[in-house]
């Protein structure tokens, strides 16, 4: 019943543990005062615009409770949009409306809700229901991402995203996150989404897991993950790695979505990216992180292009 792996085996495989991540990487490379840049999606978005990094377009921001009642007026000419809390984490509190049905709003699941539901959701966001610290929050209303057709066979409802771990500006590991029925259309691994490890140099699928168990086909669409092919992989890496220059966070998870029309876009950044990416890749993070730690000295102040080339040139990475 209890199925454990020995700590020395884990060490040999170079698996990064939670304590080691917190002490040796997050607290060492991520300055705490930089956290708000990524913890607050509004700040991230404004910063991204400043650095010319592609993100979903911000339609407007709801800051105060009395603005909530003017919502209908503001949404008059917008049929599809996403409402998210600025300080939410892990995809919490995101409401996706993909169309209108008379007075009603159609959610991504196809359910139709009234305006009252939408205002209630915004009210909850403002009260801080979804914010990390429970503080008051603001709600962002963004244009809806139209998922690239490449993932149509692999996703249930939600938009798949690609998580890339960026260490000191160098890409180290990547994973495609696919929502499932079990994850209720969300792309969070611990909620039951599928994680597909991607080869960091080519973007080709390596391995897939769901609830920490290896799987070969998507549980809902029944398609084999072997068929996944991401075009312009290098473009994605460049996008992810430029987030380092933008935030100065040394250990970073960049969540990137592929839009049908606008290509790769930065969805959000995470200063405390999870460890399941290792399971999805069947590889430990530690050897790669150590390698970057060593190489970084030699290639100080390299630009994004050079950094990505550098990693692509590695053998055995």
């Amino acid at each position, binding site marked *: 019943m*209890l*199925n*454990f*792996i*020995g*700590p020395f*085996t*884990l*060490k040999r*495989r170079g*698996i990064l*543990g*939670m*304590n*080691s991540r917190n*002490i*040796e990487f997050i607290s060492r490379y991520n300055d705490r005062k930089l956290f708000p840049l990524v913890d607050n999606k509004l700040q991230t978005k404004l910063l991204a615009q400043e650095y010319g990094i592609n993100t979903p377009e911000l339609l407007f921001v709801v800051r105060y*409770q009395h603005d909530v009642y003017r919502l209908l007026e503001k949404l008059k000419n917008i049929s599809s949009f996403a409402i998210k809390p600025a300080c939410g984490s892990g995809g*919490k*509190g995101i409401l996706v409306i993909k169309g209108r049905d008379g007075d009603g709003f159609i959610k991504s699941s196809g359910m139709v809700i009234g305006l*009252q539901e939408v205002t*209630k959701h915004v*009210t*909850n966001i403002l*009260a*801080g*229901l*979804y914010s990390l610290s429970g503080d008051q929050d603001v709600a962002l209303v963004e244009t809806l991402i139209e998922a690239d057709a490449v993932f149509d066979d692999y996703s249930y409802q939600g938009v798949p995203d690609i998580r890339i771990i960026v260490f000191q500006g160098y890409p180290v590991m990547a994973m495609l996150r696919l929502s499932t029925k079990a994850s*209720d259309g969300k792309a969070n691994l*611990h*909620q039951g989404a599928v994680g597909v490890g991607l080869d960091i140099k080519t973007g080709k699928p390596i391995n897939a*897991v769901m609830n*920490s*168990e*290896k799987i070969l086909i998507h549980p809902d669409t029944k398609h084999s993950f072997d068929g996944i092919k991401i075009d312009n992989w290098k473009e994605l890496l460049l996008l992810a790695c430029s987030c380092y220059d933008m935030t100065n966070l040394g250990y970073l998870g960049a969540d990137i979505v592929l839009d049908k029309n606008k290509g790769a876009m930065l969805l959000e950044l995470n200063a405390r990216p999870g*460890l399941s990416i*290792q*399971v999805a890749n*069947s590889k*430990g993070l530690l050897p790669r992180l150590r390698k970057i730690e060593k190489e970084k000295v030699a290639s100080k102040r390299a630009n994004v292009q050079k950094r990505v080339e550098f990693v692509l040139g590695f053998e055995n990475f």
Partner: protein
Amino acid sequence: MRHEQTQIPFLSSEKKDVWMVEARVEFKAQNNTPITVSLSLPEDTSGYKLYFEQSVSAGYGFSMVQKDGIKRGEWSIRQAKGKQVLYYKAQIVQDFTDDLPLNKVESKLNPKDDILWSASEQIAAKEILDLAYAKSSNNITFTRELIKILKNIEKRDDSSLLLLKHNYMDVLSKLLTDAGVVHRVSLALELEDARRNKALTSVIEVLDKGEWILFDPKNALQDVNKNFLLWTRGGKSLIDVVGGTNATVNFSMVKQNMPALELAKAHFDESGFGIFSVHRLPIEEQSIFKMLLLLPIGALITVFMRLIIGVKTSGTFMPVLIAMAFLQTSLFLGLLNFVVLVAIGLLLRGYLSNLNLLLVSRIATIIVIVIFLVAFMTLIGYEMGFNTGMSVAFFPIIILAWTIERMSILWEEEGAKEVLTQGSGSLLVAILAYMAMINGYVAHLFFNFPELHLIVIALMILMGRYTGYRLLELRRFREFKNI
């Protein structure tokens, strides 16, 4: 170490023998005269420690004074009639471990020897002294031999001659004086359990190398400290009564077995560490501190469970707070209360969220509902014969309300599974923390030796630097076994 200094025991159950000694002074008052009674009192010096002294005497003023370096208790009254009874009570503990000056030299006081030998006695005395001298090597062995000779009255003519007319102690003292041995006659109380109406016995103390060595004059035993409590030393009077006649002093004593902690508390008021002791606080504050000083233990366990084991809890230190709530309710009932209340609270909150309330007012509403629930549970418990909820005080209510709020947010965001994981994780850690905090030894040690918290801090820091794998990560990453 502080333990040695303050005598606070390491174990709460540690007990010590304590003698409860009572001196009863009786005399007849002379009419219409002011009365002063002066009784010589024992001191800390003879391997005993006084923990508590008290006088019970209706109408009399009482105080302790130092006269000629000797502690005396003085009772005084303006007028009294007939037979008077005064009491002095002391709690005494044998303590040879201490560095108290056991028998330090207070004065080189020689007793007045007011007996004169007759010519025949002179010869007998000389004979005894010579004999004792021949058999001994120093003052101590000399005294011992002397006592032995005097005790063999029937066998020896010379000693029986001396004791014919004179008192034994006087003879012994006179002989020692003749031999040039510095000594003194003191009064001591022979400690025997549950004895009443006991008188003091005379003992002889001989000066040797700056120390007074005590001898039991009856059997020449030297190591008599163990059961002799020196009451008055060096021939000073035991009792002086001005304005009264027929004064007698009787002693009663009883051996008690007292928790060592109680004694230590009484003791370290005077010692330097006493100032830093929690025991100096009023009892009410002490009980708060008792809880407060336990909190780090719970925190330590939470740190361990999270960093080393990897258990998921809701909120970093909520388990400690839940454990604190259990401390006030008892584990089983607390757990029952907790689970039932949180379950009901979650259901009600689900309804509340349909009302479209703002977050703050929702939490406030939940607190009120929790109070109602607690009252309801208490009533049910009372009817069923449990005395439960009454102890669910103010503090746990806030914790409950907060837990319900957090759990329901978690439910909405992450689903029921996560609520179950984090909820049971929190409860598991809370139960462990509770078990540690309720432990008598732990509570005793951390309350009486607050410096132990430094060790707790050290352990926390140590764990905070632990970069190894958490126990549950060994399961989380089990897939790597097959690569």
